[in-house]
């Protein structure tokens, strides 16, 4: 999704990681973690894609993803996919420890909460469901935002309610997904913030898509883009 639709998010993430002292490699064979197939019930197809992921990232020291959802797929669901393949399962367990969501990589691995960003705007933060509930990420992005100069965070109520994306759910149950998105943007608009920040490009696509359709000037940004601003 970042590669094909939101390349700026990837560039921003690389910039922030380099700024805090990491050197970045982008293994060119990477494509997808297989979550769309897994969540749609096509486990054999998901396994094919997951194997490709394992091959691609085998030699990497740490793998950082600009998405809580993709991270959770690797760290929480790959093991389910390979329950009956002990050898692959061992590879999964070796890999999953090295896979990090971007915000928690900064706070928990790099030990950084202030990346020297400046973003003088009022923002609100949307908790992506998989980041929040599968990975338990709530504080890390807020701590990072708190250290951005000029930024004011105004929490929406509730921040943790789903935006209605849900992968293929967004098109299979389009009307329902759209209704959920509109409830989400009501909460966003009530904060008066000009920017919605999140950890997941897919949530941001849903929210921005609904904001744009509603004719709202509020824009969405990935946390990496905010942290890359100076």
């Amino acid at each position, binding site marked *: 999704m*970042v*590669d*094909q*639709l*939101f*390349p*700026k998010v*990837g*560039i921003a993430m*690389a910039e922030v990681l380099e700024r805090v002292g990491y050197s970045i490699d*982008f293994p*060119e064979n*990477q*494509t*997808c973690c*297989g979550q*769309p*197939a*897994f*969540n*749609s*019930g*096509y*486990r054999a*197809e*998901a396994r*094919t*894609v997951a*194997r*490709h992921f394992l091959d691609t990232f085998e030699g990497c020291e740490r793998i950082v993803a600009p998405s809580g959802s993709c991270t959770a797929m690797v760290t929480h669901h790959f093991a*389910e996919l390979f329950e009956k393949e002990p050898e692959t399962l061992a590879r999964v367990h070796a890999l999953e420890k090295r896979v990090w969501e971007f915000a928690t990589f900064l706070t928990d691995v790099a030990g950084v909460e202030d990346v020297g960003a400046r973003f003088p705007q009022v923002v609100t933060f949307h908790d992506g*469901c*998989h980041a*929040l*509930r*599968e990975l338990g990420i709530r504080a890390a992005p807020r701590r990072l935002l708190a250290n951005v100069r000029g930024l004011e965070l105004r929490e929406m109520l509730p921040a943790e*309610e*789903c935006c*209605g*994306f*849900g*992968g293929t*759910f*967004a*098109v*299979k149950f*389009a*009307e*329902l*997904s*759209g*209704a*959920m*998105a509109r*409830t989400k943007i009501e909460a966003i608009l009530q904060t008066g913030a000009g920017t919605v920040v999140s950890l997941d490009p897919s949530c941001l696509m849903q929210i*921005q*898509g*609904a904001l*744009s*359709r509603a004719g709202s000037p509020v824009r969405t940004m990935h946390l990496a883009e905010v942290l890359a601003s100076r």
Partner: protein
Amino acid sequence: MSVEFDQKIHDTLADANLQLAIYGSTARLKQGRIDRVGELPDYQELRTQANAIKKHTIENLDYYLEEFERNVEARGGKVVYCKDATEVADFVLGLAKEKDAHLIVKSKSMTTEEVDLNERLEHHGLESVETDLGEYILQLAHEKPYHIVAPALHKTRYDVADIFTERLHVARETVIEKQTAIARAVLREKFLAADIGISGANFLVADSGAVAIIENEGNARLTTSAPKVHITVAGIEKVIPRAQDLATFLKLLARSATGQLLSVYASFLAGPRRAGEVDGPDEFYVVLLDNGRTKLLPDRAKRQSLYCIRCGACLNTCPVYRKIGGHSFPWVYSGPIGAILTPQFMGVAHEPALPFASSLCGACGEVCPVKIDIPKILLELRSDVRKSEAREKQNRLEKLAFRGFAWLVTHPALYEMAGRIAASMAPSEDGGWISRVPPLMNLPPVKAWLSQRDLPPPPRKSFRELWRQR
């Protein structure tokens, strides 16, 4: 997706009053839960404990059911095993005939809804009256429960005024207290005249042979004590080993369900009235219902579905339930728990789209007091639906599409080329988001997306192209 499921979702979303009623009622229940569990310092430990008790019980269900049966019979009650709806109805009808019974009062029970007991009894000329206020309103309106705990959650007081006026021929009354008084006056007479009382059960306590019923209106207590014959209808999964386990479950149940510390009435029924007791039935029966439950037992991953204590917390917190309500669901159990119980009890073909009607946000699993991993079970069921489709040779186009997807993303060079072709076809509105696409690109998923939202404009270069140039 069945046309019916699709239509019900559409109709519910399009009904502004209904949307307000569902959203408002669930919001109150949701916040109540959050407030009450927030006061419990050991809330997470209680959940873990409740889960462990349920897990242990379900894994030793035969043992505890036999213990329960022995103890019920030791207290003079009788246990009847029924495998399905017909057997339950046959048992009740047989007993009613034997006792020359005509009027039955019922307290709230999802299990009896599951087997359409009222309809079956009425079909044979018996009058079966719901005595829970919400259930009574729905019985008058000829509707099924909208919610596991709050069956008439979708009815406003104005709706209730209309129903009472039409069915009870009373003057239109919109004050809730007065509506309650109207229902109470009718129901008191029914309690006094009833030949048989039928209740559900929240817990079946194995070590004491007792049925525990948790409620707020007192109607269950009257139902189980006023008539001469009492029948409890409960799913076999309701058994718990010890009375002391209630200490765990009762702390969780009312808090999770309605945001109460405890419900108003907790009744423990053990056998018929004994010598010297003033209240209670002369005969006490417990119907233990399978109705598909034993089919779940061999499945290691999914049998945790049977841990459910029917608190409804997953419904109140579910952003899907809060939009599509209870009647969109294809069976009596709605919301996230309905989405996992229905395919398992009725078969995945009953409504193959049901496990997919979820954004997998995980809010249900987070609030479940017995820690049922609902999102995981939904994923398992999605896989089961695909297996069933493959057997039946259905939905082959989608299967092919996902095969194509898996093939494409494991061939990075082709994946990159395909991405560039798609991007070159998409319209670019000066970097603005796209609200329509050329006919050639207007494939069903794109069309569905655009029916509600705009699409991002394709970037001039993909990330990998930008990265190479760096």
